[in-house]
C-alpha cells in the first residue's frame, strides 16, 4: 500500500537545521493497521505529513500502490492531533467538506455525509458547531470528515491523545470497528504503548532524532475482540516497553 524508501527530510527550526527523518524505510500492506511509535520529536509526525503528500521529501521516495506523488492524493485521509476542524462550519458541513471540495453533487453528498455521521454516532449533532462538542465527539467528527471520502488509506497523528482514558478506549474500539468494516489501511502515529499494542498489527519503533526505525514488533492479535484484557496483550505491551527502554528512547513514551 504505502512504501517509504530511505526517506530523508530536514526542516529549518529556531535553533538551526533539524534532521527530522534520516533514511526512514518501511512498507505497509493493504488493509494493514500499522503503528509508528517513538519519543516526541522523533520525526513520526513529519513522516505522516510526508505520507499525506503535504510535505516533500529531500531524498528517497514515497510510494502508494507503487506510484510516487507530491500532492495530497484522492483516497488518503488525514487526522491530525488537534483535528483541524473548522469552527465556523456545522458538524454536517465539516463532515461534508471533502465531498464539497471534490464537487460531488448535493444529493449524494448529503446522503454520504448523513451515512458517515450515523456510523461515528454524530447523526443527532449535525447542526451543532464543533465548539459545542465534547473532545470525544470532535474526534468522531474528524474521523467522519476523513472517512466521508471513502479512503483506502487513513493516516492519524496522535488521534486520541487529548482524551481521557475511558473515552480513549471507546474510540479505539470505534477506530477498529470502522477499519474492519470499511477495509482501509491505517497508519497510526502514537506515543502510547497501550494504544500501539491495541491498534497496531505491526508496530514500528522509531529512535530519537534523527528519525530512523530501530525495531519492529509483530502483533497479529491486534484488533481481535477481548484483546485488551488478555494476558497476550500485557505480554506484548511489556515487550514493547522493554524494546523502547533498550533503544534508549523511553523519554516521552507512556
Amino acid at each position, binding site marked *: 500500500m504505502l512504501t517509504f524508501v530511505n526517506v530523508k527530510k530536514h526542516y529549518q527550526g529556531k535553533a538551526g537545521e533539524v534532521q527530522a527523518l534520516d533514511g526512514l524505510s518501511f512498507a505497509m500492506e493493504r488493509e494493514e493497521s500499522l503503528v509508528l511509535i517513538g519519543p516526541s520529536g522523533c520525526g513520526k509526525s513529519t513522516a505522516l505529513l510526508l505520507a499525506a503528500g503535504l510535505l516533500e521529501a529531500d531524498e528517497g521516495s514515497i510510494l502508494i500502490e507503487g506510484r510516487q506523488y507530491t500532492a495530497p492524493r*484522492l483516497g488518503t485521509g488525514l487526522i491530525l*492531533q488537534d483535528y483541524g476542524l473548522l469552527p*465556523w462550519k456545522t458538524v454536517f458541513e465539516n463532515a461534508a467538506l471533502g465531498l464539497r471540495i471534490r464537487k460531488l453533487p448535493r444529493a449524494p453528498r448529503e446522503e454520504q455525509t448523513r451515512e458517515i455521521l450515523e456510523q461515528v454516532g454524530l447523526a443527532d449533532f449535525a447542526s451543532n458547531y464543533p465548539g459545542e462538542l465534547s473532545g470525544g465527539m470532535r474526534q468522531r467528527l474528524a474521523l467522519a470528515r476523513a472517512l466521508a471520502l471513502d479512503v483506502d488509506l487513513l493516516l492519524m497523528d496522535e488521534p486520541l491523545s487529548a482524551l481521557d482514558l475511558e473515552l480513549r478506549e471507546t474510540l479505539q474500539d470505534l477506530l477498529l470497528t470502522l477499519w474492519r468494516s470499511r477495509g482501509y489501511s491505517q497508519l497510526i502515529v502514537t506515543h502510547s504503548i497501550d494504544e500501539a499494542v491495541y491498534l497496531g498489527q505491526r508496530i514500528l519503533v522509531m529512535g530519537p532524532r534523527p528519525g530512523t526505525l530501530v525495531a519492529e514488533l509483530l502483533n497479529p492479535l491486534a484488533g481481535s475482540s477481548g484483546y485488551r484484557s488478555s494476558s497476550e496483550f500485557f505480554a506484548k505491551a511489556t515487550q514493547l516497553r522493554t524494546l523502547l527502554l533498550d533503544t534508549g528512547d523511553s523519554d516521552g513514551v507512556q
Partner: protein
Amino acid sequence: MINPRFPKLLGYALALFGILVCWHLLALALGSPALPTPLETVPMLARYAGQLGPDFLISLYRVVVALLIGTVLAMPLGLIIGRSPRLDAVLGPVLYILYPIPKIVFLPILLVLLGIADAPKIVLIALTIFFQVLITVRDAAKEVPLASVLSVRSLGASRLDVFRHVVIPASLPELFTALRISSGTAVAILFFAEAIAGSTGLGAFIVDSWALLDYPRMFAGIIAMAFLGVVLYELFDILERRLARWR
C-alpha cells in the same frame, strides 16, 4: 426565552437617560451659552429636522460607501499578504511607513484632485479604513491554525479552497473588530472633511451653527453625529451575527 432585543433597547434607553442627566448637570454647573442644556437642545432636533435629516443621510452615505470601498480593497490584499511570508516581507515595511501617517493630511491634495463634493471625503475615509483593515486582516490570516489548513488540504483543497473555507472565515471576526475601531476614526475624519470643504453633511451643519453662535443648533448636530455612530455599530453587529454565526 426573553426577547434578546429587549435588553439592548433597554440598555440604550438607560444609557441615553444617564448621559442626558450628566449633560444637564454639567450645563447647569458651567452656566455657559457654549454648553446648552438638553432641554434647550432636543427641541432643535425637531426644529431643524428638515435640514438635519438630509445632512445625516449624506454623512451616513459617505461613511458607508467609504467603509465598503476600504474593506473591499483591503480584505483580499490583507488575506493574501498574511498567507505569503514573501509578500509580507516586501510589503510589511511599506505598510508600516504609510500606516501611521494621519490620512487627514491628504485632504488638501484630494480637494485639488477631486473637487469638494463627495469624492475627496469618501476617499479620505476609505484610506483610513483601508490600512486598519489591511493590517488587522493580515495578522488574522497569519494566525490561522496550521492543523486546519493541512486538514483541508488533505481533503484535496486548492489554494482558493483554503482561502474560501479556512482563511476568510477565520479572519471575519477580526475584520469586524477592525471596522468597529476604525469607524470611530472614520466619523472624526468625516467631520473634519465636511467642516472644511462643502456645505453638506453633519460636519458642515455643526460648523455652520458654531459660526452662527447657535449652540443649541450645534448640539442638535452633535446628537445626530452620535446617532450616526450608533447606526454604524449596530450595522456591524447585524452583519457579524449573519456572517459569523458560530460565535
